[in-house]
């Protein structure tokens, strides 16, 4: 059979295969090099995986669909810097699975919301947003304070994340690697075998929801929100440093 446009158009199977090939080229050329070009992920200090409590909060963030209205990516534009802070680095979401960059903002970007407001504000705002921001259109999330945090499968969730590349440790060799990379204090937090103890200890120490008698979903979510965008100390770097990675 002579190869011609006609032979493609009248052969549905061949048409599908060749269409997929044509589309894939665009995707592959854009995506694949990012995995081996060394400057894709900026070399910065401080970025670490989430602690078990923060990760539990992140799961609640995903469950409640916060990402539908809130992005977590500040773009390198002057107006975004003025409103939200320094633009997001690729390094900052290297342990996010799935990432929460987002492409639509109904609410403000949350990439640097950590430490911006007090815990008490977050609790009040999640419970009843309009009691602190009258013009807000965010829904109320009162059940976060009522629901006891379920962390029975925290170790499994960390194992799942480990499979996709987050350096939580299970064996002593993995733990040692983390000690070298993050220091002992941090490495202890990423130990899957101590997931429950770590989660409880952080909740007890920082008491995010203001109620010491209970461990609620609010504790976890506020722990997550308060760490967002706080891992990199930007005062250590000159602005030009980040531009060299692009």
């Amino acid at each position, binding site marked *: 059979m002579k190869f011609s446009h006609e032979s493609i158009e009248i052969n549905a199977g061949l048409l599908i295969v060749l269409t997929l090939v044509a589309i894939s080229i665009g995707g592959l*050329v854009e995506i*694949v*090099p990012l995995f*081996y*070009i*060394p400057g894709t992920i900026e070399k910065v200090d401080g970025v670490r995986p989430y602690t078990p409590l923060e990760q539990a909060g992140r799961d609640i963030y995903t469950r409640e669909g916060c990402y539908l209205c809130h992005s977590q990516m500040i*773009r*390198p*534009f*002057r107006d975004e*810097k*003025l*409103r*939200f*802070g320094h*633009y997001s680095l690729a390094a900052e979401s290297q342990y996010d699975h799935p990432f929460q960059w987002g492409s639509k903002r109904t609410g403000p970007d949350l990439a640097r919301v950590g*430490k*911006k*407001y*007090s815990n*008490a*504000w977050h609790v*009040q*705002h999640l419970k009843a947003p309009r*009691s*602190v*921001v*009258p*013009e807000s259109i965010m829904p109320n999330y009162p059940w976060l304070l009522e629901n006891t945090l379920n962390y029975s499968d925290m170790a499994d969730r960390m194992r799942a994340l480990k499979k996709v590349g987050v350096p939580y440790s299970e064996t002593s060799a993995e733990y040692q690697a983390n000690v070298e990379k993050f220091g002992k204090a941090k490495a202890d937090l990423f130990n899957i075998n101590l997931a429950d103890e770590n989660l409880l200890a952080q909740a007890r120490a920082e008491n995010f929801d203001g109620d010491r008698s209970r461990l609620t979903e609010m504790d976890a979510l506020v722990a997550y929100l308060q760490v967002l965008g706080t891992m990199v100390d930007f*005062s250590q770097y*000159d*602005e*030009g440093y*980040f*531009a*060299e*990675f*692009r």
Partner: protein
Amino acid sequence: MTDKQTDNAVQTTGHAWDGDLQEFNNPLPRWWIWAFYASVAFALIYWILYPVWPVGHDYTKGVLTVSYESNGKTVTQHWNTRAKYIEDMQTGEESLKQKAYLDKVVNASYAAILSDPDMMAFTRSIGKGLFGDNCAACHGSGGNGVIGKFPNLVDDSWLWGGTVEDIHATISDGHRGFMPAFRETLNDEELEQVANYVLSLSGQAVDKEQVAAGDKIFNGQKGGCHYCHTHQAKGMKSVGSANLTDAIWSIADVPDASDPKGKLEAVEQVIRNGVQRRMPAWRDRLTPEQIKLLAVYVHELGGGK
């Protein structure tokens, strides 16, 4: 039918269905063809100007460059959005417009800023944005706060001082407001007495006997309220204790209580449970210029001293 189509001299694909159904084979519209060629040409030019193609462990950088200042030296590098952003922050049209004012405001004393209409106009417009982004979440977009949670900034009462310098210190370093809980120290009867006394300080109608008893607790060893609130109950700036004589309520929701009993209950609640409030420190998040502008803006909101 067939005859007419042949007359029109438009080519057909040569198929015929159901005897007379045929398919024209018209050329693509000329505008479409030219748009296609134009987009090909655009792509070629784009490849030359901007970073585009991955090559081994690197990529083509394009011929466009961006220059900006870094550590006192001029850096020129290939075009990318981050370098473009630095350039925009340093020499962009809006940045330069703002910088002229910023330099003026930063080098001026507070007294000079407050008396200069031009600098105040700038402060008001930039302060509104800063306040909206950073402060309004707690203090409200108008600055009137939430009773019981976040202080009102438009009234005339200042827990930590209302001069521009005080406000600057508050924004920069933050504060931890603390009043102990008295539920262990005072029983229900005593709580009511102290609440009566506190309400009487701002001229609310209350029970005389209770007030006298409350006075003893407030100004004596038992309650020791005067240690922070002072004997005159005017509060102390150094510890952020409230002035109880001015009928301005920041924590106990007295204004919203409809009857005297509700007012008493609101005050008792605060004495029973104590207060813990935190104003975050902004010095690491905002630049010194921004804090200065915000201090003036907040001072101007209505209640500056």
